[in-house]
């Protein structure tokens, strides 16, 4: 008896030593693994807002719904019937996913899949419905009469068979659909490790989403805690609880309403002129703030995928370069006036439309101009006249001004993928280059560079850096960082600007190249462009019109570009001009820009009518500030 007792105690002692000493580390690790838990707090990606606080991009937390088919027994059909409507899936397809799939591991042991993803990006509302459906699931048996084991099976099925990934995913939503798609860009999901856990994070792949990815992405938080046998958290045993920091909101200078106006007018222009693509930019010359930037065809960032043509993803305003054609004459004439190489009234002989220079013959498209003043050269867009102005200015000075207007360098807009264009150094020029460049050939520019150069003329000669982001703010709408307008350089003098504006005003008058771009209530200064696309003679053109108004105190500069319009009608004045006009009329009314022309159709207000006029207090502030932040005009 004593011997037995000793043996029993010895056995217990051995077991005790085995558990508490020999296997202590392994067992305590296993116990900790079952008890301890790390909960990841994903950070919410910040919103992208327009200038009036309207949300252009936002994020929603969503679930990835998974299943453990090993807990379903033979109830796949019942579960599939209950969940198919919530998951918006076909019942048969869902039942197939819920079927147990067995496989053999490396040791030849049979295993079953206990992790099957049923659907990603399920909203929290739908997940609550799924949970409710699982709770109220009926299997057609009286469970009270079942054995304890069977009851536990059904309990497990309801509570554990359908579950979600522990960390919520995010769904990026663009509430306005295709609006400003090229500016906003899009995101893609990537995995990263946080505290040893894989977390899916959104990463910007284009546009503002990519350029401001680090600001938009917050910091992921985590919580180290313990859970009970029912996997419920024991709050008492929380050790670390680091809250996540949501990403910052990016507030753009872009105005969603202006953007919509531009996009809808470009769409009409696309229908009329059937170009390969059409682009438009609205800039405030005094600050360089971009109110709208659009390119068609575009895409819906909500449905980005393999079906979206790659060409549609390109923001052609900054990525594509082209020979600007006659819009570039504004740059050449400005430079020549600034250097006093010519005067506005100086008469130049335009060779009756045919000019031999540097071994080449230059033509004036469809015209045989004789003597023209420099002002007329701008108004009528004479190639030979512009070439002669360029020749008078000289290669070195022309090159200097081309660079000073920002060509050959990226504008510095806060968007990825900006092209710099091509401006060859003077040493690489041929003899004819000076004449070609003066006509807008022999160099390439982006639409944005061209728009910013004309904006510099509108801004009394000062070139501004294009500004697309106004400020960054936190989740409580508190401003964190404010971007200020940045002047790049003073390119031409104010006196030169006055002369240039005088010449550019004539472009939209009868006898100019774009009378279709004239506005009823505002004087417009602008320049048309119709550049041939290489190979020359292929009847492929790049047509454009860039203008600003009111001409003498410009508030808005609008640029419209058509890539390969219908060759039956391709001149900038007749294709881009009317689009400019349509955009300008709507934008001017929306921003309540003060007219500088009393139009004949205007009737002075006699008495308040049934539709009272809108009253806006003019306080000397820029016109955009006269409307309320959230107010809208229709």
């Amino acid at each position, binding site marked *: 008896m004593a011997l037995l007792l000793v043996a029993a105690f010895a056995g217990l002692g051995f077991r005790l030593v085995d558990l508490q000493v020999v296997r202590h580390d392994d067992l305590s690790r296993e116990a900790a693994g079952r008890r301890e838990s790390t909960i990841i707090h994903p950070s*919410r990606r910040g919103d992208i807002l327009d200038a009036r606080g*309207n*949300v*252009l991009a*936002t*994020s*929603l*937390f969503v679930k990835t719904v998974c299943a453990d088919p090993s807990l379903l027994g033979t109830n796949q059909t019942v579960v599939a019937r209950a969940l198919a409507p919530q998951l918006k899936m076909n019942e048969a397809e869902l039942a197939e996913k819920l079927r147990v799939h067995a496989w053999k591991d490396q040791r030849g042991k049979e295993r079953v899949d206990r992790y099957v993803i049923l659907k990603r990006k399920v*909203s*929290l*509302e739908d997940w609550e419905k799924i949970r409710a459906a699982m709770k109220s699931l009926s299997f057609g048996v009286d469970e009270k009469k079942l054995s304890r084991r069977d009851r536990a099976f059904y309990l497990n099925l309801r509570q554990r068979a359908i579950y979600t990934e522990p960390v919520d995913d995010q769904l990026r*939503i663009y*509430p*306005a*659909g295709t*609006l400003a798609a090229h500016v906003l860009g899009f995101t893609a999901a990537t995995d990263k490790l946080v505290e040893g856990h894989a977390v899916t994070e959104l990463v910007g792949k284009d546009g503002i989403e990519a350029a401001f990815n680090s600001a938009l992405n917050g910091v992921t938080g985590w919580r180290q805690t313990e859970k009970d046998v029912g996997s*419920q*958290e*024991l*709050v*008492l045993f929380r050790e670390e609880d680091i809250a996540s920091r949501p990403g910052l909101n990016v507030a753009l200078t872009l105005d*969603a*309403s202006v*953007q*919509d106006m531009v996009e809808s007018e470009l769409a009409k222009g696309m229908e009329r002129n059937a170009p390969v693509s059409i682009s438009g930019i609205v800039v405030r010359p005094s600050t360089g703030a971009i109110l709208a930037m659009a390119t068609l065809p575009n895409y819906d960032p909500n449905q980005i995928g393999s079906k979206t043509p790659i060409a549609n993803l390109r923001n052609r305003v900054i990525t594509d370069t082209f020979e600007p054609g006659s819009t570039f004459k504004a740059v050449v004439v400005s430079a020549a006036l600034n250097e006093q190489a010519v005067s506005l009234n100086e008469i130049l002989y335009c060779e009756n439309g045919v000019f031999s220079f540097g071994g080449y013959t230059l033509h004036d498209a469809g015209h045989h101009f004789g003597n023209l003043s420099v002002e007329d050269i701008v108004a009528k867009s004479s190639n030979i006249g512009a070439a002669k102005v360029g020749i008078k200015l000289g290669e070195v000075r022309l090159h200097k001004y081309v660079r000073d207007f920002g060509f050959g360098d990226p504008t510095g807009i806060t968007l990825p993928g900006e092209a710099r264009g091509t401006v060859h150094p003077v040493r690489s020029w041929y003899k004819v280059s000076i004449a070609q460049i003066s006509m807008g050939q022999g160099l390439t520019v982006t639409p944005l560079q061209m728009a910013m150069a004309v904006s510099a003329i509108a801004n009394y000669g000062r070139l501004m850096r294009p500004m697309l982001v106004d400020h960054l703010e936190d989740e409580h709408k508190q401003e964190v960082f404010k971007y200020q307008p940045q002047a790049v350089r003073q390119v031409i003098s104010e006196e030169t600007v006055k002369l240039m504006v005088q010449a550019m005003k004539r472009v939209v008058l009868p006898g100019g190249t774009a009378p279709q771009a004239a506005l009823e*209530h505002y004087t417009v200064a602008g320049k048309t462009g119709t550049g041939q696309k290489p190979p020359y003679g292929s009847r492929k053109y790049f047509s454009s019109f860039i203008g600003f108004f009111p001409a003498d105190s410009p508030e808005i500069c609008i640029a419209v570009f058509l890539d390969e319009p219908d060759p039956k009608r391709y001149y900038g004045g007749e294709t881009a001009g009317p689009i400019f006009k349509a955009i300008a009329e*709507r934008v*001017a*009314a*929306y921003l*309540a820009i*003060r*007219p500088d022309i009393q139009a004949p159709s*205007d*009737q*002075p*207000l006699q008495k308040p009518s049934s*539709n009272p*006029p*809108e*009253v*806006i*207090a*003019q*306080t*000397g502030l820029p016109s955009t500030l006269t409307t309320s932040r959230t107010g*809208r*005009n*229709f």
Partner: protein
Amino acid sequence: MARNRKNQSAAVRFGPALKALLICLFIGGSGVGYVWQQNQLLELGRQKAEKEKRLNLLRVQNSQLGRHLAELQSPKSLETRLKELNLGLSMAQPTQIVRLVDAPLTPAAKRILSMHPAERQYAERRTAALPAP
């Protein structure tokens, strides 16, 4: 003397029993108190977790409503709604906009505006016309 001894011994026996009882009560009370406290902590923890869940749910609902609001405020949605309602709204023409030009402030008015609100009230009272008798 013997009675006193007897009385003393009775008192001595009662004292330890009382002490033992008090100690037992203290230990028992401490145990019950500890269990109650732990229970309370767990209960508060549970309530905290529930409230955190509720807060998260409200945040999610808030962001969903925000998204819905953003969709409703998008220019396309507003245009569609305007067409549906057929209210005949159109963009204000430049002639329909009346601009009021503020007169430049006089030096006295500028001085009053820069004052503390209480001082401004006092100054306004002093400069105001007397009430009619």
